[in-house]
């Protein structure tokens, strides 16, 4: 894995240039093409941006992220660079505008190196639902990198970028971060504009950041966060200042630990790591306190009702009328376009979502799930009145093998058990690498905090990674 501050040192010492470094990365991407991490690599554009960055360094006016190599999950809109969502439906779709996050990255000198693979429309937890084929975990190629931001996590883990943007609707940044041994931040809902993030479940989606360290994560968060007139669900507040606050970890803080009952959903490796990090947090000045959720059993059903309901509507626009894939042949092309353009998992979720919204079932499913979401939201409000942060597993198990769960959707959905509550509660959460106990495969643990307190998550991650 590579670190932006190391790169900056090399630039200062004239050991490299942005162009040379970018070429190095492009070579590495080519060498690692068997991992299937990138759907699109932006060779020419990246080199042009790198040349501009070299000029800036030479002129002595580098911007905040000058020369930083960034990979973008391929469900985030990039003007003139095809944005496929790993779907046949958008196989050749070139957006006419940049996502706000991308625009802000480029305005501060970041180099967009390419677009990373994902589960189709971010629906999946293993990167196996991609139309472009699955991604291999760089640590052990027999394993999945997790999903849906599997390409972004793998890109960071394989040292193919400094930072990657992902998106997290139910754990899609944190779970692959855990499986690939990187840091993965899902900020508070509304922290980063969703303008240009292709919607899966609008009320849960949030752009997230994958990196090897807290320092790079903070730099990027501070640049891409903040209000945006193009997204009314984006909080009307100024950008975060986590980079400046990174070293200011409070001497004393309280942290929540979950009940043994909840922890018992995890494999032994995870439980052991959890206990280890409880001790580590204590050594950093943390005061543990056991907290309780009203009913963790409602998390997964609540999430899959709300997320699929919103998805069924969000994906209605792909009808072959205006852009994207259109099925050939006679007759009703909208039906055939959608039948042929979407993969199995996407269709499964559209059908589920359509069902829970249909008349006669709406109250039993959707309305009830909305109420359940309110309970979870209130749980978090109560918990963060009691503690500053909460320590959670990121996943119930270490990484699983390619093909292990893809034919068992319920088992796949349950791998999201510990991540989805943060999306339902709209709170920020970060997965940090917590060792590689079994077969050298990484596992991750998660820190959660109250709305808009990304500061403490990054301060603690920074301290824990040292």
């Amino acid at each position, binding site marked *: 894995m590579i670190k932006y501050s190391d790169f900056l040192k090399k630039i200062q010492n004239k050991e490299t240039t942005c162009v040379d470094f970018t070429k190095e990365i492009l070579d590495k991407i080519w060498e690692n093409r068997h991992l299937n991490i990138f759907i699109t690599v932006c060779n020419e554009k990246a080199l042009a941006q790198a040349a501009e960055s070299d000029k800036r360094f030479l002129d002595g006016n580098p911007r905040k992220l000058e020369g930083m190599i960034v990979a973008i999950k391929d*469900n*985030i*809109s990039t003007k003139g660079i095809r*944005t496929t*969502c790993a779907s046949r439906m*958008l196989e050749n*779709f070139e*957006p*006419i*505008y940049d*996502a706000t996050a991308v625009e802000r990255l480029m305005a501060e000198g970041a180099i967009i190196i390419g677009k990373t693979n994902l589960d189709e429309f971010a629906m999946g937890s293993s990167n196996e639902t991609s139309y472009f084929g699955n991604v291999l975990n760089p640590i052990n190629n027999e394993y999945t990198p997790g999903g849906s931001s599997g390409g972004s996590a793998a890109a960071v883990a394989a040292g193919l970028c400094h930072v990657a943007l992902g998106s997290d609707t139910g754990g899609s940044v944190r779970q692959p971060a855990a499986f690939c041994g990187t840091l993965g931040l899902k900020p508070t809902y509304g922290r980063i504009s*969703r*303008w*240009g*993030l*292709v*919607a899966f*479940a*609008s*009320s849960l989606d949030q752009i997230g950041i994958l990196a090897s360290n807290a320092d790079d994560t903070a730099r990027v968060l501070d640049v891409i966060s903040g209000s945006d*007139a*193009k*997204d*009314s*669900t984006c909080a009307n507040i100024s950008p975060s200042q986590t980079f400046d606050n990174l070293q200011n970890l409070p001497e004393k803080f309280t942290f929540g630990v979950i009940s043994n009952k909840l922890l018992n959903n995890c494999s032994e490796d995870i439980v052991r790591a959890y206990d280890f990090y409880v001790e580590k947090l204590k050594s950093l000045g943390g005061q543990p306190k056991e907290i309780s959720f009203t009913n963790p059993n409602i998390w997964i059903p609540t999430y899959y009702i709300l997320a699929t*309901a*919103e998805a*069924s*509507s969000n*994906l*209605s*626009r792909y*009808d072959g*009328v*205006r*852009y994207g894939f259109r099925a050939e042949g006679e007759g009703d092309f*909208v039906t055939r376009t959608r039948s042929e353009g979407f993969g199995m998992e996407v269709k499964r979720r559209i059908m589920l979502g*359509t069902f829970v*919204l*249909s*008349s006669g079932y*709406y109250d039993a499913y*959707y309305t009830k799930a909305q109420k359940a979401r309110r309970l979870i939201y209130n749980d978090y409000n109560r918990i963060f009145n009691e503690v500053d942060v909460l320590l959670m597993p990121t996943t119930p198990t270490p990484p699983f093998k390619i093909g292990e769960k893809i034919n068992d959707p319920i088992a796949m959905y349950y791998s999201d058990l510990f991540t989805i509550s943060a999306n339902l509660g709209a709170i920020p959460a970060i997965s940090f690498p917590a060792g590689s106990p079994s077969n050298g495969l990484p596992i991750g643990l998660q820190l959660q905090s109250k709305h808009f307190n990304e500061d403490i998550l990054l301060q603690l991650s920074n301290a824990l990674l040292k």
Partner: protein
Amino acid sequence: MIEFEPVIGLEVHAQLLTNSKAFCSCSAEYGALPNTQTCPVCLGHPGALPVLNENLLNFIIKMGIATNCKIREISTFARKNYFYPDLPKGYQITQYEDPICYDGFIEIELSETERKRIGIIRIHMEEDAGKSIHDLDIDTLVDLNRSGVPLIEIVSEPDIRSAQEAYKYLTSIKQILLYLGICTGNMEEGALRCDANISVRPIGNSKFGTKTEVKNLNSFRNVEKAIEYEIQRQIEVIRNGGNIHQETRLWDAASQTTRPMRSKEFAHDYRYFPEPDLVKVKVSNERLDSIRSSIPELPLARKQRLIDQYGIPHYDASIFVEDHNLADYYEHCCSYLAVKSQKTFKLVSNWLMTEVMRILSERKIDINELGLNPKFVAEIVDYLSEDKISSRIAKDIFPEVLQNNMSPAKIIEERSLVQISDSSALETLIDEVLANNQDSIEKYKSGRKNVFGFFVGQVMEKMKGKANPKLVTEILRKKLDD
């Protein structure tokens, strides 16, 4: 035979005159080249998000206040899901469970003395779809300029009891929209659209009959005709022992009938749910107060005031308030009158309704396009009311006033058109006329009273129309009858 009464409720869609669309900054203007007023939002591109146009909110609140609605402090948007080629996102953003305006009413006039209250169930915000153009050989084409244009939907209570009432209700709604300046009211361009829910029941029954929804009412006259047709159709079906099916029917203007829509055309489960891309709409008291103070006097209130303040007949006032510009114009004219009296106010009204409106209808323009200084109308009326000119002179000089934008006072003075009201001068002239027409005097005295007009004509001709006809008549009578 059992007599039936219709029960009618109208759903009116009005396109709002905001500069930009409901949820993006594209122009909402009508008539541009197809697909030139579009962006990622109204094209439904991946990752694009809607942002509420604040003017849409202001406009609907205006309409809500003008129709006596309650305004919800917090309301939400919902998605109405269905597939159609001209619906780019596969859903329409609308309001569902908590429309911003609800529980209001307007009044319509059944006669000069009788008003009726028609309840308004709700008024909500939504976006328009694009336009599919089917009637081309090549294929179905889609124009998305209209996609995302702001609409409000005004839903009435089933308080309407005849096609005529429906017509009056619809014209009242249109007038209010025009007064507020928030819609062009043009049904032919689709800026105003109307669907009618119609049922009939035996008079005296309190239970509603089964209703049908009639769509495609694309002109004011069609609304009346279609409703009338549908009422009669339903009565006939029932009288013949049949039942009304709840269905959607289309008005076919060519055959002047309604026909059922194919069931596929409306069998939707719209799967409404809260729109997660938009935040709750909050209406502050400050906003409400400032909008309330910006609401102009509305048609019915204005009509009553014109009657009370100027003493003009109900008929005149009705004509003026139909177009608020005309009403404004009338009041402007009155404000320039040298003598303000019920008589002069009525003279202004007469002058506008005859001379001015005739030109408007000939040229098919509105009063503002005419460019006639209201001061000039007041001048003419002042001359008329003081008998300084005859109405013939007034009519004669009017084209010149209009064409050359010249003050009537100036024309009258320059050409000495002030009529002669000096009785001694007139008496001399009349004596002359009488002396030259002895035979006609004989006829008159023998009882042929219509010869009187001949004498008046003779005098007027000699005076080139400038003689005060009243005075001429007076003197003539005196001389002939004595």
